[in-house]
Every structure is written in C-alpha cells, then in structure tokens.
C-alpha cells in the first residue's frame, strides 16, 4: 500500500507553440491539504486538468493507491473519486440549486413502475443535507441565479463534496469570497481532511497557503520545482522559488526617451465594488508603462473602463492636461486613445471579413471620396503600408482574417489602431497566443511606437515581458494599484510581492 492516495509522475503536455508541462509531478497524501503554487502560466491549472481528464497527457502516469490508472474524461475522474471546483464557474442560473448540484446525475425513479423520471423529492432532500453539511442556509429549490458569485462558488464546493470524492481540487476557490465565507470554506476543508480526503489547493494568497496547507508544491514554466512542508516555508521563500528563473535577452533594445506626462488617471473606480478602485497613475510621452498582476487583478477591467467599454462611478482621465470624458469607445478613439483588447477572437477580429475590412474599420472616414464613397485604392495603400511595415504575412488584402496565424491577426489589429494615429495605445496581452518569432516582432513594433513618442500601456501576465519591455511598472492586486516601480531595476520578487499584496 502506497503512502500516497494519488500520484502524478513525469507529466508532459504540449499545446501548439508552447510546452505547458514537462515532467511535472504531484503526490497527494490522504487527509492532507496540498498547495500548488506558481506564477501565471506555470502549468498549475493544466496539471489539474490532466488529472481531471479534461486534457490528455502527452506523457506521464497517474497512480491511485499505488495502482496505475488512466483517466480519459471528467466522468471517469469523478467515478474514481476525483472532484474539481473550477476557477471559472459554469452554473445554470435559471435552474434550482438542487438541479445544478445534481446536473447530469439526477436521482431517478420509475413512474407507474416503468417510466423513468427524475426523483425530485430525493434530489432536494439530498441537496438539503449537503447544504447543511457545508453550512449553507439556502432553500434547495431556490434559483441558482439568485445567489451571489461567492455563494455559487460555495454551492459548487458542495457539489464537489456530494460526489463523495477522495481527492478534491480547489482552483482559486477564495478569489471571490468574503472573509466570513473564506472562514466557512476553511471549516469545510478541515472536516474533509478529517474524513481522509486529499485536497489540492491552488491559490496565490500566501497567508491562506501558510495557514491551511500541509505541503506545498511549487511549479515554474511547466516544470516541477519541488515539494516542501508548509511549516518550512515563508512568504519570501515561496516567492523566490516561484520566480527563480533567469531572464534571457528576448527583447529588442529600446531607444525611446520618456517626455512629459500625456495621459493621467486619478482615483478611477468601477461601478462594480469587486472591480478596480481608486487607481491613479500617469503615462509619459514615449513611455512604456507595463501593468503587472495576477490573473483576476482587474487590469483588463481597468483598461476597458478607461476606454468606455465598462462604466466607472468615480475618477477622472486627463489627456494632454485636458479632462477626457469617456462613455463609449468612440469617445476615447476620437481623442486619440486606442485599445488592443485581450481576446482577439471575441473583441478583436471580425473573422469572416477581409484583412482590408479589418484594418480599415476604425479609420474609414479617412478614405472617403466626396464624403461618401470609400476609395478602395486608399484602403489598399493602408493595407500594403502595414504589410510592409509590420511584415504581415497574408496571401492578399481580400483574404479572410480568420485564416491568418494569431501573430499576423494581431499585427492587422495593431495596424487598425495605428491608422487612427493615436497618442495613447493600450495593449492588453499583446503577445497572448502568439508564437515566439512573431512575439519578438511585436516587441519591436511596440518599442518603435514608444520611440515615435506614443504613450504605451501594456498589460502582460508574462513576467519576462513585463520586466523586459517596461520603462515603469504598475502592479495591481485585487482591483487596486499596489505599487508603481521603475522598470530598470525591478526584480521579479518585487513585482510578485506587490501582486500578492491582498488585504
């Protein structure tokens, strides 16, 4: 009999263009809380998805009670006693709590002895018992949609518990919980520990980790760094182990000289109390301001707020010293602000339209003859200019943008914004999902824009990119700006400490 309830050994997993996991491992003891830590993109979630059967491992083996097993889909994981609470919840708001918990495995009974129907009474009785077990006081017949996000999260945990699991994976379970709810979650975890359940706990909050976990496994760049007893660790030692990587010279040299302040934001606060609040910063002419933080730090939301996609209830924006009122994207665009959105697919490209249509959509008014007729030669010139300048690889300007590679799509969208000749460019994860070669090209474009005197705000979740490209770095945590540091001397430890400064 193995000492470990579940073991993962030599797990490797590659996605197109990136090695997400290489020889990662994890060993879980029954009745222990095992914290899994690492930066954004270290491979924590990927490893868990491999365990839960969402991803197929390229290499590696899972052992349960010392016996090798294969897990090919989540149903099989559940049947083997593994349950997972996902970071992104997928509830069905218009159905009851009971139905959400028993989705896909409704208790059945036979009507008139032969017609199979859902046994609602049993389902709601079981739900009531479960909710009591996790100390939630809801009516099982209440609509899921009437709960708050954090309550839904607790229901999700109840659902995982209901599967009578032996291994429970909690992926950032406290990100939306209040302090009281966190306490009750910890009580639930304590109960489960006593029942011998092994718990994998993924979180960035150091104090929580140090408080509830027994062991800590740290990952970095898809690799296993090590496992330590939680008692032996401190916040500082965890951060050092998480970031301890050498940064290679992957970034172009920069010749930009930051000038006077162009763009200034004061006390910017969202209408949503959980989102960005009291954020103040400024950007100079020809400066690249990197914006760092963990996933969920509300960086994207802040930028979308500045651009008028999201609403704010307080705060002011100044451009060239003049106040800028932004209620919708057009207001910002007209004043010379551009936003390269985080998700190219959902808010960047218009997939079925041509490269020419995609690149010109934001600046069409410039190519009109007699104020009405679009001059297709001028549009073609715009395309060719950008194709040459940014080395965009496309068969023709009429090609559908969705058939280009991610890097080329991104260049087209950058071209779309440059056509407006903006003073301030907000780039949200400009190199996400782009292969290494195209990444360097995009860095060169960004460096060149700064050299031309544009002010660049760049959100990035890649530590190397943040340190390698920024003149100054603003770090956010949980909706607040936790610090602005100089880019030159900044270290990964400094950024990480600011990014985990929860209160």
């Amino acid at each position: 009999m193995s000492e470990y309830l579940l073991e993962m050994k030599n797990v490797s997993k590659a996605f197109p263009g990136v090695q997400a996991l290489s020889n990662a491992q994890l060993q879980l003891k029954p009745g222990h809380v095992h914290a899994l830590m690492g930066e954004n993109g270290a491979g924590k979630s990927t490893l868990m998805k491999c365990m839960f059967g969402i991803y197929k491992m390229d290499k590696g083996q899972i052992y349960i009670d010392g016996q090798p097993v294969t897990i090919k889909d989540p149903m099989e994981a559940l049947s083997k006693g593994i349950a997972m609470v996902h970071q992104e919840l997928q509830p069905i708001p218009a159905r009851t709590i009971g139905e959400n918990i028993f989705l896909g495995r409704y208790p059945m009974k036979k009507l008139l002895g032969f017609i199979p129907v859902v046994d609602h009474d049993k389902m709601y009785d079981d739900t009531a018992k479960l909710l009591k077990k996790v100390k939630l006081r809801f009516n099982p017949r209440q609509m899921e949609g009437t709960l708050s996000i954090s309550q839904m999260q607790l229901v999700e945990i109840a659902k995982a518990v209901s599967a009578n699991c032996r291994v429970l994976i909690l992926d950032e379970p406290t990100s939306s919980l209040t302090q009281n709810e966190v306490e009750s979650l910890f009580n639930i975890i304590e109960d489960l520990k006593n029942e011998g359940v092994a718990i994998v706990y993924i979180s960035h909050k150091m104090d929580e980790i140090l408080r509830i976990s027994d062991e800590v496994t740290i990952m970095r760049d898809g690799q296993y760094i090590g496992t330590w007893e939680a008692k032996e660790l401190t916040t500082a030692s965890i951060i050092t182990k998480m970031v301890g990587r050498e940064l290679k010279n992957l970034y172009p040299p920069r010749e930009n000289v930051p000038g006077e302040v162009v763009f200034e934001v004061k006390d910017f606060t969202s209408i949503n109390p959980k989102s960005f609040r009291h954020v103040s910063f400024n950007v100079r002419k020809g400066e690249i301001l990197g914006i760092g933080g963990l996933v969920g730090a509300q960086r994207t939301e802040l930028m979308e707020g500045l651009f008028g996609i999201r609403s704010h209830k307080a705060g002011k924006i100044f451009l060239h010293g003049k106040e800028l009122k932004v209620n919708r994207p057009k207001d910002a665009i007209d004043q010379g602000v551009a936003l390269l959105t985080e998700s190219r697919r959902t808010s960047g490209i218009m997939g079925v339209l041509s490269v020419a249509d995609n690149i010109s959509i934001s600046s069409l008014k410039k190519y009109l003859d007699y104020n009405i007729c679009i001059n297709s030669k001028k549009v073609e010139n715009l395309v060719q200019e950008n194709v040459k300048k940014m080395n965009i690889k496309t068969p023709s300007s009429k090609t559908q943008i969705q058939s280009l590679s991610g890097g080329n799509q991104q260049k087209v969208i950058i071209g779309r914004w440059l056509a407006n000749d903006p003073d301030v460019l907000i780039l949200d994860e400009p190199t996400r999902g782009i292969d290494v070669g195209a990444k360097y090209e995009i860095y060169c474009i960004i460096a060149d824009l700064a050299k031309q005197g544009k002010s660049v705000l760049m959100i990035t979740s890649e530590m190397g990119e943040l340190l390698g490209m920024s003149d100054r770095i603003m770090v956010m945590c949980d909706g607040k700006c936790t610090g602005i540091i100089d880019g030159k001397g900044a270290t990964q430890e400094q950024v990480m400490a600011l990014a985990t400064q929860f209160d």
Partner: protein
Amino acid sequence: MTAAKIENKNFFGRFLATAKSNPIVVLLVAVSFVVGFTVPNFFSWGNLGNLISNTAIRFLIALGVSGCLITKGTDLSAGRQVGLAACIAGVLIQRGDYTGRLFKGIPEMNMWLVFLIVLVVGAFIGCVNGLIISRLKVPPFITTLGTQTIVYGICLVFTDAQPIGGFQSVYTRLITGRIGSVSGFYLPYLLFVAVVFGLFFWFLYNKTCHGKYMYAIGGNEVAAEVSGVNTKNTVLKIYIIAGVMYAIAGYLLAAKSGGASASMGMGYELEAIAGCTIGGVSTTGGIGTVPGVLVGVLVFELLKIVLQFLGVNPYYNYVVQGLVIVVAVALDIRKYIAKK
C-alpha cells in the same frame, strides 16, 4: 489558400469553382433548361417578362431584409409591411369616381404624393423595429414577430378587411408598363426599378461606411463597437432602409396586381429570407452580397415558374420550395464546416 487558388485559375476554372460552391443554383438552371427544351413557350419573351416582374418586387424585399440578416438579425414583419404599403397605396390611389371607394371623403391624390406617404410609413415602421432592436436589445426575431402582428392588425382595421380596387389608370399603367410587346421583344419597367435599386445597394454595401459597418457588426459586433463603430445607429439605419424597401415593394405590388387587400404580402418575408440564404447570405452574419441576393431570389422565382410549366399541382409548390430552402442552407453550411 483557397482564395489564392481560385484567383490563379482561368475563366473556365473560376466558373467551375463558382458552380461547385453553388450546387443548388446549378441544379435549378439545369432543370430549367430541361424544361425549356421539353415544354413549349418556356423560352419566350412573355415568360421572361413575367419572371422579371415577379423577381423584381421580390428582389426589393430581399434587399431590404439582407441588411438585417447580415447583421445576424431578421425581419419577420417584411411581408406584412409590404401588405400595409399596398393597402395604403391602394386606398389613396383609388379613382375619385370609383363607386367602391373605401374613404369617400378624401380627394383623388397624385400617385407620387401617395408614394411619398407610403415611404414615410415604411420608414416609420422600420424605425420602430430598429429602435426596439438596437436600444431595448429585444432579439430581432421577437421584435419583428411582434411588429408583424401589429402591422397586420393595423392593416385589417384600416381596410376593414375589404379588398381594394379601382386604381387610377396612370398608376397601374406606369408600373405594369413595358418596352416592346408581349409577343415579341418585351422588358417590363420593373426591370429598371430592380436594376436601379440593385446598383444602389451594391454601392451602399461596398462603397460606404454604412455598408462596411454593417458587415463589421455581422462579423463581430463587440469588435465593431470597440473599433468605434456606432453599432446602435447602424442597426437602426438598416431597419429603416428595410422598411422603406418593403414600402416601395408594396406600392409596386398593388399596381402590378391591380388591387390590394390586407392578406397581400403574406409569407413574403420567408421567401425573401429564403432567397437571401440560397444566394449565400450567411445566417451566422457578416457574409452576403447583392448579386448573391439577386441570384437567390431569381432561383426561387424560376423554381415557381418551372413547377407551373411542368403542370405540378400548385399545392406541391410549397413542399418543393421548402425542400429547396433546407437543402440550400444545408449545403451552404457545409462549406463553412469544411473550412474549419
């Protein structure tokens, strides 16, 4: 990659490629040739004129609805709006001495003044649709399902469900007029109306900001909004233009039929949507061309005439038309599935 391949081919190669991607069109053209050489009078000026007149009015309606479809919307009120326009035109254009006049109190009106009134009513209904869809964010399907019923109700109340006839002869003569004679060379005036609007829409869709914005919204509404497109106003304009097109179609239809009634235009929205879809307007948005819409509508009208010439029981028409719609869209969607 495929685009590049097609560009490299000669004319015949391109023709084959186009034929391959529009099988239903090829099939119908082939069928009509077979019918043409086996049934007498199919290839005749009279039949051509008939086809053109029928197609012209359907084409105007389809052009109106195409904008809604390209932006992932729809317009179920199209047919009833055509009916209302026909009834308004009919009532106002009745001869002063006609005994069955619906509103005896009003004076005989100039047909162009009536045309203007009809346009304003069409624009107004379109505006209502557009405002509900763009501002209140009610899905287009539901919005226009509602206005469809409302418009029909208004039409019934207003005409008291009575058929309307006795039009001024200038009106009917002008619209059903033609160049040439029925037995010889023959082109109806409606052909020129269709050509003018076809060109106008081609220009609107390809050369103006409005057109580009429309395709952008259909391609990705969020991206369009982020790029500074005024999506609300663009959608509003699309539905107003659609309303105006239905009004024009209704005005022409009343004259062509020589009478109007509240039931006129029933089901035309579905024919128009079917025509657009057969012509390659994508139901997932962002794709669709004016020539495509024309081909779609033409194919549909051709199908009707072919069935008529073959002496098929008219009740079967619906079955065949329905099959063509489903098969056409199933084939069309296969193109996109194969690409992924």
